[in-house]
């Protein structure tokens, strides 16, 4: 009895963290969409008269060396991070689901060949690929998403494959087969929806990973470059001037950290809940 109480109160507390994380994420998305669209300043327009201003009520995070409003630039950058994170995760998710579903459902030789190929790709550190691809394709959002998608789907494929192997042995899958339903239909209508929990958990982990990769590379100077300033680019630019204008560095840095931590909290929470309902 006492133990039950403890678990349920723990659960309630857990939900509180998740709710807070979700609210912060929604605020971040709202600001990333609205500030560049409806705000009074443009993230790229330069104005020599208001260079290097400190934080004020007119410019919340001050202005940079070209007189651009840092508040607008930070949220514009956060928007780019979100686009890259969600966009590449959607593509990775789709590739991974199809790949893993085929491997797990067909089994035997096809499974072996597909998963060995995935192992081979996964063994090579993916950041090295992403860097080379941005060099070949030129810096930009497209080449960044393409680079992230080269090896990013493998985790998803492994998870979906495992789920398929487990689910295809279940009674309802056998019943569907006896009913004469085609393999593809069983896969998409009956098996994949049952793996949805695990897919969502994995998807939520993919987003912060992609955002991190983009910020990391832009910070190194091999990702996005001006004028498409993502959070990583802003941090890179702010770093040179961090002693004189710390705000220019700290604002994008903290925005990025909060975004990543919030995604982690949500993903972990989903993982725990997925484990409980199973």
């Amino acid at each position: 009895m006492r133990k039950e109480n403890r678990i349920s109160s723990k659960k309630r507390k857990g939900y509180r963290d998740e709710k807070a994380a979700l609210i912060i994420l929604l605020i971040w998305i709202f600001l990333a969409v609205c500030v560049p669209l409806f705000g009074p300043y443009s993230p790229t327009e330069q104005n020599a008269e208001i260079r290097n201003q400190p934080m004020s009520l007119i410019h919340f995070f001050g202005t940079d060396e070209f007189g651009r409003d840092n508040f607008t630039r930070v949220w514009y950058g956060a928007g780019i991070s979100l686009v890259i994170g969600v966009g590449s995760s959607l593509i990775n998710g789709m590739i991974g689901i199809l790949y893993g579903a085929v491997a797990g459902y067909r089994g035997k030789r096809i499974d072996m060949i597909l998963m060995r190929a995935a192992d081979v790709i996964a063994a090579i550190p993916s950041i090295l690929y992403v860097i080379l691809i941005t060099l070949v394709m030129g810096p930009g959002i497209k080449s960044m998403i393409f680079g992230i998608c080269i090896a990013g789907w493998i985790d998803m494929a492994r998870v979906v494959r495992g789920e398929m192997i487990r689910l295809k042995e279940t009674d309802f899958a056998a019943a569907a087969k006896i009913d004469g339903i085609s393999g593809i239909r069983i896969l998409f209508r009956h098996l994949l929806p049952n793996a949805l929990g695990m897919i969502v958990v994995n998807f939520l982990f993919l987003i912060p990973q992609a955002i991190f990769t983009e910020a990391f590379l832009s910070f190194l100077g091999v990702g996005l470059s001006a004028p498409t300033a993502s959070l990583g680019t802003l941090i890179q630019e702010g770093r040179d001037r961090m002693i004189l204008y710390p705000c220019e560095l700290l604002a994008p840095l903290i925005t990025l950290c909060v975004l990543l931590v919030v995604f982690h909290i949500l993903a972990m929470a989903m993982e725990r809940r997925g484990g409980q309902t199973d």
Partner: protein
Amino acid sequence: MMRYTWKRILTGIVSLFLLATVTFFLVRLIPGSPFQRGGVSEQVVEAVEEEYGLNDPLIEQYLSYMGNLLKGDLGISYQDPGTSVEEIIGRAAPLTVSLGLSALIVSVIVGTGCGVFYAASEKRAVKKVIGSLGMLAAGIPGFAAAILLLMVFSVKLKWFPSSGLFSFSHYILPVTALSLYPTAVITRMTGHALDEEMAKDYVLFARAKGLKKSRIIFTHALKNAWFPVLNYIGPASAFLLTGSFAIESVFTIPGLGREFVMSIANRDYTLILGLTVFMGTVVILLNLLTDLLGAWLDPSVRRAYRKK
């Protein structure tokens, strides 16, 4: 077991081959010539390209590169003729390795310690604090932590030096920044695995026998809970190697990561190629090694393969 070993070694070899091939062609695809820059005439660029064999058919270049690679010859730097890529690696690698190895040791020790503490403690507050700190450490990227540490501890407080890697105090900030993420992962792994182990019958039996909790954890449960950590060392080394790109750039340490970033800025193709192949090889071999070690040591994996 032998079958698993051979299969794993074969995958490793294919990975190495793929790495070298893909990297070679990608680097050749990078637009522009490494020798093109202001003030250099077309003829000079062409002459130098001829000299380095860049005008030969691609397949010939590829074969000769692969042949040299097997002999351990990675070529000569384009921007710094006279030094070979091996020399640059030989100069830079010790710094990166010592940084990465320190970070690995720190994260294994601190991570396992925090994990044990997490599982052993019955206080909710302790679990909550370790869990939240772990969440923060897992979420905050290493380069962001590095900048914050640099700003606070070496610019503002001046406790630690801000650049180079010469003495013990030079190591503290970069190693801290680099080891944050793996420490969080290892803490979570050991914490959860220990929690599961502690609920098993043999622990109950040991408790009934009157063994102390610390003894149960350290001599029985931890041995079983630690296998996932062993398997994680491969991916962790990949993370530490690539993570050090940013850390080395923040703390101006002339290691592999900094050489790599500079070689990209300089369009030094042989150096980009050589460093990518070298770092990829190190990661692939470490992955192979820890996987095999894990398989040999972990009785459950051994048993699963014996059945087949």
